[in-house]
């Protein structure tokens, strides 16, 4: 235990609620709004209801400072807050009512928890005296979300409200970020109290790490300078800690091959000569071969997820592992680690950079020449490729065209499934906070609202929801939200008339027994767009694709582009579930 915790423990005992200076009394609802302003919140995604009536009443007094975005479903509200948070790096805020409002938000909260997205979700609750009485629209949302929040609160006293909000924002944004839920009973929002936001956050047991242990960092550098087949395996942690420049410099000075995870897309420029592309289940052949044959894995801001490693007992069997992560419980969880370093990615990479000798660059070029030659051979043996067609639009071609027309600079949000993997393989994100995807939980319906949230934060950027026909129908009602707030978001529905990834698995692992993956009936997406008063376009043949994309991407306002693609195209390469990375099916 550190000295800081020891000190904290002592003051915890001494600490008594200091009487506050007498100031103006205000109701809890206003304390909430004032607190949000203090946190710099400019946008709240929400949906009203009985338990949050006082809060909604108060919001109109704050309309110059807080924009409230009225969503069409609470799941959409939380995904929008996630998109906003992922694109900006700020804490996203969602506000929903009790009972069904809160339970509808759970998918978004669980999604944010798995992908370490900083959120504060405010839920209304029935009045305190009714809690536990099975009251109308009562749900124990604190109990329900305990396993899928970084922390959560039930506010039991209006005097605690401001302090809880301050703590919640601190917890959500610091360390490994995550969602924090604050459940506020209706009567607390009506009760009067003084507003004081000056108290420091006091969390004696919470130490979001910063720098790495210097002995371990030295050991890591020593191993890196000796390794003959090293690989840098990077993920979402790089993006959270804004370590893009540091990782780039680190990789360049050591000529390290770099492979990002799905959550790490854009944390290293994909067109860079050191980038091997994404690894894992649908990663590139050469990235998977390189990590499998490596002698040293430098893992930063990653968690050795099963979609990355495949069968753990076959994963990189000759490699030693240096693992840098801000969450020490991620280290040694799935893979034994020789050099564990708990710390913030940016700080630790800077520590390592400081230790590199001046001639590291030239020495690495020599030492790794053979390794790079091998990697190039793998790349030549099985490049990322597909057979294009002039009859039917290949989904990979769609992504390549999208890349060409947006220069790889768009912010693109996806759901989960085939479209997500093709985008990851072929789009080539150039920078961080461009790829907004549901990685851990794999949530259909995430992409469109997430894109909308990002567009609210960046009205002038090209923001695209790249979704499938299945996922889009899960949150398509947010079209109304997009129109109401005049968002400029572009929606590309990649329609293959199937729940494509499930169909692919049924084809490969269930002898083509397609069980309930053909939706058989989907709406006319162009007419659906028109019903919401937005431009709808459709491309059915390859020769129509460019003009539809050009017109759709450049039009002002919301545009829905339905692109009919090859129905039974599969995502390759593919590592079957339970197999080792080297047992890829190349297609």
């Amino acid at each position, binding site marked *: *235990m550190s000295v800081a915790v020891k000190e*904290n*423990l002592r003051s*915890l005992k001494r600490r008594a609620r200091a009487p506050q200076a007498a100031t103006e009394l205000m109701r809890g609802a206003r304390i909430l709004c004032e607190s949000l302003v203090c946190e710099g919140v400019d946008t709240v995604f929400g949906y009203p209801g009985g338990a949050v009536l006082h809060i909604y009443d108060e919001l109109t007094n704050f309309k110059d400072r807080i924009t409230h975005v009225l969503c069409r479903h609470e799941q959409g509200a939380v995904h929008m807050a996630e998109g906003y948070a992922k694109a900006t790096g700020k804490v996203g805020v969602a506000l929903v009512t009790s009972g069904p409002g809160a339970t509808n938000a759970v998918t978004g909260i669980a999604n944010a928890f798995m992908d370490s997205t900083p959120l504060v979700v405010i839920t209304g609750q029935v009045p305190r005296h009714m809690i536990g009485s099975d009251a109308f629209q009562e749900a124990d949302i604190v109990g329900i979300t305990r396993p899928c929040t970084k922390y959560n609160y039930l506010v039991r006293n209006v005097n605690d409200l401001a302090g809880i909000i301050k703590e919640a924002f601190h917890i959500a944004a610091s360390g490994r970020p995550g969602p924090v839920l604050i459940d506020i009973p209706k009567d607390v929002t009506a009760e009067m109290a003084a507003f004081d936001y000056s108290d420091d956050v006091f969390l004696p*047991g919470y130490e979001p790490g910063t720098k790495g242990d210097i002995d371990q960092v030295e050991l890591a550098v020593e191993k890196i300078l000796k390794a003959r087949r090293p690989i840098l395996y990077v993920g979402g942690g790089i993006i959270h800690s804004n370590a893009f420049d540091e990782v780039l410099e680190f990789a360049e000075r050591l000529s390290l091959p770099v492979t990002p995870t799905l959550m790490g897309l854009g944390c290293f420029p994909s067109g860079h000569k050191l980038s091997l592309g994404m690894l894992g289940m649908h990663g590139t052949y050469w990235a998977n071969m390189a990590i499998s044959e490596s002698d040293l894995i430098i893992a930063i801001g990653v968690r050795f997820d099963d979609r990355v490693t495949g069968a753990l007992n076959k994963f990189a069997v000759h490699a030693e592992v240096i693992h840098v992560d801000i969450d*020490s419980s991620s280290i*040694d969880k799935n893979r034994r680690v020789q050099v564990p370093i708990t710390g913030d990615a940016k700080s630790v990479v800077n520590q390592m950079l400081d230790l590199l000798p001046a001639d590291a660059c030239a020495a690495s070029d020599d030492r790794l020449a053979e390794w790079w030659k091998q990697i190039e051979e793998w790349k030549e043996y099985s490049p990322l490729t597909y057979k294009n067609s002039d009859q039917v639009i290949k989904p990979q071609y769609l992504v390549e065209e999208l890349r060409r027309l947006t220069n790889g600079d768009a912010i693109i949000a996806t759901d989960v499934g085939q479209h997500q993997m093709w985008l990851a393989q072929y789009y080539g994100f150039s920078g961080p906070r461009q790829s907004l995807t549901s990685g851990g939980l794999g949530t259909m319906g995430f992409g469109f609202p997430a894109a909308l949230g990002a567009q609210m934060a960046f009205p002038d950027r090209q923001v695209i929801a790249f979704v499938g026909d299945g996922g889009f129908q899960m949150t398509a009602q947010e079209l109304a939200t997009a129109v109401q707030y005049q968002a400029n978001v572009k929606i590309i529905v990649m329609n293959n008339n199937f729940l494509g990834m499930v169909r692919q698995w049924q084809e490969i692992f269930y002898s083509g027994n397609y069980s309930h993956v053909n939706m058989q009936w989907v709406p006319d997406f162009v007419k659906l767009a028109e019903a919401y008063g937005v431009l709808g376009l459709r491309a059915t043949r390859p020769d129509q694709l460019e003009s539809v994309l050009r017109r759709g991407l450049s039009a002002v306002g919301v545009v829905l582009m339905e692109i009919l693609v090859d129905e039974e195209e599969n995502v390759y390469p593919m590592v079957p579930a339970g197999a080792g990375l080297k047992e890829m099916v190349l297609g």
Partner: protein
Amino acid sequence: MKHTLSIMVENRFGELSRIVGLFSARGYNIESLTVAETLNPTVSRITLVTSGDDQTVEKIRKQVEKQVRVLNVLNMTGFKHIQREMALINVKAEAGAARQEALSLVNIFRAKVVDVSNDGIIIEATGDWSKVSALIELLRPIGIREIVRTGAVAIGRLSEEQYSDDSIQYAAGGGQ
């Protein structure tokens, strides 16, 4: 193998549930659980016995330790410590040979008789898990009506010097 975790947590609404939920959500077993406040009433100590190999238990320990309100988690199995459990045992033993046999076991195990009636006695026994279990096994042939066992509590065997060490500050019950 059994491991005893000593968890110091801020004494707040919902924290026990959060920690217990973590065990079930991640598929770890809880064999026993004891919770009470420490010298510092704002801090609770949870003594939790779980099982698994060292590596698995270390994963659990880290998962618990990262919780926002958890101050510290120590795997007591790696330290010199004293561990105790208590059991209240209602034994069917009428006056005569059966009661004499029960009383002699009470004596040998340094347990106590806390209630006596015409047809039985209630025994209070303390000790580590294996001692309490051994007593129960020996009483079983005499006739046990009911057993109530507590979870384990554990305290480190530390010197004054060690108590002033940061790394075992936990043992002071949250600081003086």
